[in-house]
């Protein structure tokens, strides 16, 4: 095996080990809570892969995680620590809702394209704020993006309650459903799985091609791994930082638009989902490899779906099962990923 191949194999083993470790620790915690771990494991397995319907439901959750995971992979590969995917996702959804409302009538393809483009734009603008703050005021993006998440939540709530509100809704805090022309088609009705999953899965190899085969991707990686050497090679490091940041935000926004258009069909004043945070774990577990994002997203989607399934399980022994265990597992997986291998997180340049 070549050295590079060996490196890839170790990385894969580390990710698998982290995922398995997360599951095991979750089961251990479950046992400590007084549940029978074997029952839980069986019920969990049924909930995520017991039937095509169940697996399609996992894919439905994986869809936004894949797209946002790719957005973050792009940013992290350029050394941009975008923690604000949640806000970018939200403003993408908001942009999409606005476009859907303005273009209620029109040829389907055009409306749908406009809705998705508005999602890209919404996320791009929001990431752009943090990018400009970083470039011109030196504000660390780890801080600004996470704070902008809260601002985004409020902006979305104000607009949903105000301009976009559906006057017929009970609490006046949801929008009307988007028109049929603005929705993504459903691929598998029993689980509500929509065409967004095709877009999501298709984006992964596209991002890989971008990073590995184009000059832009080459520069993006060089800037992320050693900005000093990249600058001395006359790559405009600052501009790449801003550009990649905005592209990352646009992708996260696209995830919001896809979710609105394919799954929820309307916004609520409290639309924030936490996908933007879970996707950080997705990107890390995937070790910033675009193709790894798909299985990593499915893994985290299965965790979430599985625990929700446990709660609804007819087995009386599992009644009142705590959802917080998803977060325990998530935390363990992230820690294990970072521990088992030195990720590139924060390791731009070299350790000396």
């Amino acid at each position, binding site marked *: 095996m070549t050295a590079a191949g060996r490196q890839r194999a170790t990385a894969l083993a580390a990710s698998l080990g982290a995922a398995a470790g997360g599951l095991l620790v979750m089961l251990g915690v479950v046992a400590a809570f007084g549940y029978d771990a074997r029952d839980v494991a069986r019920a969990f397995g049924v909930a995520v892969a017991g039937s095509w319907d169940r697996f399609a439901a996992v894919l439905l959750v994986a869809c936004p995680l894949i797209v946002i995971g790719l957005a973050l992979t792009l940013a992290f590969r350029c050394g941009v620590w975008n923690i604000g995917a949640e806000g970018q996702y939200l403003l993408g959804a908001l942009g999409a809702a606005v476009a859907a409302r303005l273009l209620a009538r029109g040829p389907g393809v055009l409306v749908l394209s406009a809705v998705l483009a508005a999602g890209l734009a919404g996320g791009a603008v929001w990431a752009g704020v943090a990018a400009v703050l970083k470039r011109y005021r030196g504000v660390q993006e780890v801080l600004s993006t996470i704070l902008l998440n809260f601002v985004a939540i409020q902006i979305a709530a104000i607009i949903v309650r105000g301009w976009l509100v559906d006057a017929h809704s009970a609490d006046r805090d949801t929008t009307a459903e988007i028109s049929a022309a603005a929705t993504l088609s459903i691929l598998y009705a029993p689980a509500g799985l929509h065409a967004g999953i095709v877009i999501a899965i298709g984006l992964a190899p596209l991002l890989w091609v971008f990073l590995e*085969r184009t*000059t832009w991707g080459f*520069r993006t990686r060089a800037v992320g791994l*050693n900005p000093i050497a990249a600058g*001395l090679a006359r790559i405009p490091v600052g501009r790449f930082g801003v550009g990649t940041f905005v592209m990352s935000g646009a992708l996260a926004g696209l995830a919001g638009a896809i979710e609105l258009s394919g799954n929820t069909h309307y916004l609520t004043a409290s639309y924030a989902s936490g996908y933007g945070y879970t996707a950080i774990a997705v990107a890390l577990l995937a070790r910033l490899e675009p193709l790894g994002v798909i299985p990593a997203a499915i893994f985290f989607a299965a965790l979430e779906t599985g625990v929700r399934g446990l709660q609804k399980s007819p087995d009386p022994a599992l009644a009142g099962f705590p959802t917080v265990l998803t977060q325990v597992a998530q935390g363990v997986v992230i820690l294990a990923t970072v521990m088992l291998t030195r990720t590139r997180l924060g390791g731009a340049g*070299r350790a000396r």
Partner: protein
Amino acid sequence: MLSLSKITKRFGSAVALEDVSIAFEPGSVHAVLGENGAGKTTLMRILFGLLQPDSGLITLNGLRLELRRPADAQRAGIGMVHQHFKLVEQMTVAENIVLGERASGRWLPRSAVRQRALEAARRTGLEIEPDRRVEELSVGQRQRVELLKVLQHEVSTLILDEPTAVLTPAEVEQLFAAVRALRGRGCRIIFISHKLAEVSAISDVVSVLRRGRLICTEAIGKLSPADLAERMVGERLAPSERQPGRASGEPVLELREPPLSVRRGEVVAIAGVDGNGQQELTRAIVEQAWPAHIADDRQREALVLPMNVAENAILKRHEEAEFSRCGWLRRAAIGAFAERIVREFDVRGPGIRSAVGALSGGNQQKLVVGRELSGKPTLIVAANPTRGLDVAATQFVHGRLLAARDEGAGVVLISADLDEILLLADRVLVIYAGRLTPAPPDLSGVFDASAIGRMMAGLAA
């Protein structure tokens, strides 16, 4: 008597110290003098327990010392003031002095902290202002705090690592007064420096290191700074086979500040001890001319270690039509180019698709040299291009630089290694405190090494 005998230390294949024996007497200031890379700092790190020698003995008053960690050295009464201060800027002077001491109880009241600091100051005769924050202090005052931190213990041996590098002349005087007072109390002071005038002024005995070997240990009384320079730099004869360049008169670099012009076909060497403005000079040249650049710190400035050999080979040229078309990388051409560099410049490693970080330092440097020289550059800036390389790799890099010169490139060689400069240079300028001064012209085609050495140390030629 603190004695080092037959100390040898290697890093990989590079020998940092070979068979060095020095005895340090109490009540005297003993200078250890040498150029950058001569082994001074390695020797002191061994003496302070930060490094272990591969072979050799350290004895104190006839008893063998095992120095595995700094705590061992401290127990033996050895204290060290590092070149780079280790202070907490946001804390007060008194807090910094007490920092790291075992507290006598669970609580450490401010008054007790202050008291202990003042007590230490009184005992050592070093004046301090205990309540000021370190961030408000001048460099000289900070150094005094460092000194006090060390001297509050019973210290019989004090190591000062390049203590004057960052001080103003007045601060240097104050430091020297403190050093003399310590000597008067029987302390043994080891003074590491490459500044000849200061070594003459403060020390009683001097040991000179060159390339990891001890050249001599002598009483300072008989030695002038010029004598010291000669010992530090050595008797060097430029090799007779050196082929002078044929400067063609056509300039490839005209720098205004500092003034520097380089013509095709010549190697202009900038000699100087590190930290005299070389970095600024390099940046000025790079930003004006974007030359082929063999960077001083290859891992930081030249290579992207996690990227593979092929990607690093085209780092600076990836936009050229040969390697990219309409935004797409041309993988076959890139691979062929990388293979060519690897072959021509003898870069040994696991292949062009493996990370550059997996190559040895010498092979990384050969890759950088290969990449930079592959484009037939007209101007080359090489900063310490052979630092850390073994003999074979050094000769290889030298050969390539001379070959590039003979093909018509103008070469700026910035180096702290006088041997390298004498070997390659067609003209020599000395950089000291940011200023460039031409070295005296040679009559017989051989540069006057001791004159250059004196200029590097800030003395008149």
